[in-house]
């Protein structure tokens, strides 16, 4: 095992800010994209249902 403790893991040999900053932002961007896709999907679905109910 490379890491002696959780603190050690988080500190990343003093580079914690940079390493975790990178991975955190990557995660935020990817989760953000997924959420945006989901919202877009919902919006389309809503207008579609509205149109369906109109045409019936």
């Amino acid at each position, binding site marked *: 095992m490379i890491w002696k403790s959780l603190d050690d893991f988080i500190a990343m040999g003093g580079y914690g800010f940079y390493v975790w900053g990178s991975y955190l932002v990557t995660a935020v961007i*990817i989760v953000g994209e997924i959420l945006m896709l989901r919202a877009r999907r919902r919006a389309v679905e809503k207008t579609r249902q509205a149109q*369906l109910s109109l045409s019936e």
Partner: protein
Amino acid sequence: MKLNWFKYAAPATFYPLAGKLIPWFAWSGAILAVAGLYLSFFVAPTDFQQGESYRIIFIHVPAAWMSMFIYIVMAGWAAAGLIFNTRLSSMMASALAPTGALFTVIALWTGALWGKPTWGAWWVWDARLTSELILLFLYLGFLALHAAIDDPRRADRASAVLALVGVVNVPIIYFSVKWWNTLHQGASVSMTMAPKMAATMLLGMLVMALACWMYSIAAALARVRCIILEREQQAEWIANLAKEPT
């Protein structure tokens, strides 16, 4: 009315297919990411020059690769859309663009966070960095042009022309920037500082890159399904699509 049904046919068959494929890509992306992160943080040894900061490589390099690769794939789809006038190809191109732009941002961001500890500056005007920045501008131009034209078919075709012009230019830009940088004296920091990569490091990077691949495909497919729904709301097959939410 026989309104060129065959043009709708492609999205009509593709839509459910994409729906079936997405979970596969998404799950394999997630699993690969877990494996890659495990390799990156628990298997790969500490770098004797850079210390732990080098662990950024496992996200930085795959993101940089993806950013370039997606642009080329996008231009390919755009060209197909322009030449064969198939709607699905153009939709694929516009579905890929945001994901490509996001990977470019990730590459820039992680690169900057890597640069501060290694070079002492967030940013230097190095050839790779600069051409990555210009790549971001090309993506943004594509997205902005697409957003600025209201008729989606026209937007597809106009931004396809732009993507093609861009793809001719990307290598020119890359080499010109490289030359620019090597001819000038000054900040001669190179990114090949990383030592000969240990096999585990290489493996970690490859697994992470594969995870990014899977994720990109899943995201692009999900987006293309939205685009199909948005654009073809009047098409019959969409109305016939199960009336319950898909």
